[in-house]
């Protein structure tokens, strides 16, 4: 398999299957770190019923590829998988997964966090929250901006 797999998709994914792919014929990488993000039932104290995810199709994958390349320059990484869903997602549904294999546990940890941190501030995705009261586009979180700036 290719070392980097990036997918933007409406349909759900199977987290275990994706991890399995990262590990197939890959006996040199002892460490796999993964992040899975799901739709929470609450945001800023408000009950959420669903999230709508919009993106900029031609730009999204390119943006994620650039983030991955920066991570690869910085750490010794094996395989990388990024899946981000778009469209309408119910509470509890998966939004995003990032998984990184490496020979070194700390490289895998840092690269996974780095990719998530930059995905949050650079990749052209936008969340609209659907509540009982109506719909609302979310604003970026200052913590997220600060986190990316720390690298």
């Amino acid at each position, binding site marked *: 398999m290719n070392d980097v797999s990036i997918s933007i998709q409406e349909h759900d994914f199977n987290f275990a299957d994706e991890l399995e792919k990262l590990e197939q014929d890959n006996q040199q990488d002892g460490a796999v770190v993964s992040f899975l993000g799901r739709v929470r039932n609450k945001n800023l104290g408000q009950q959420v019923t669903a999230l709508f995810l919009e993106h*900029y199709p031609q*730009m999204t994958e390119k943006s994620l590829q650039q983030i991955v390349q920066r991570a690869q320059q910085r750490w010794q990484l094996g395989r990388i998988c990024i899946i981000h869903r778009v469209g309408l997602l119910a509470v509890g549904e998966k939004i995003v997964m990032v998984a990184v294999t490496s020979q070194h546990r700390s490289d895998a940890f840092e690269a996974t966090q780095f990719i998530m941190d930059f*995905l949050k501030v650079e990749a*052209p*995705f*936008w969340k609209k929250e659907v509540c009982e009261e109506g719909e609302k586009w979310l604003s*970026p979180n200052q913590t997220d901006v600060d986190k990316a700036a720390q690298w």
Partner: protein
Amino acid sequence: MIKVSFFAALREQLNCSELNLDIALPLTVAQVKAALISQQPQWAGSFNNVLLLSAVNHQMVDDKYNVNDGDQVAFFPPVTGG
């Protein structure tokens, strides 16, 4: 001629996802915004938002970036994926 796209809250505010702008180029991104506002004065508020992000040919750029003929320009609010 350039293609201009709008996303998310900005797309809804403008009630427009895409338009073709027939204009003398090159222009900076700031000048493209000014040209859009001069054609659609009611868009001024949305475009004067300092947080608005710009991309040319799917790459984030700043207001001083030069836009050339055939470029794909996009404007959008800060991203909130992940």
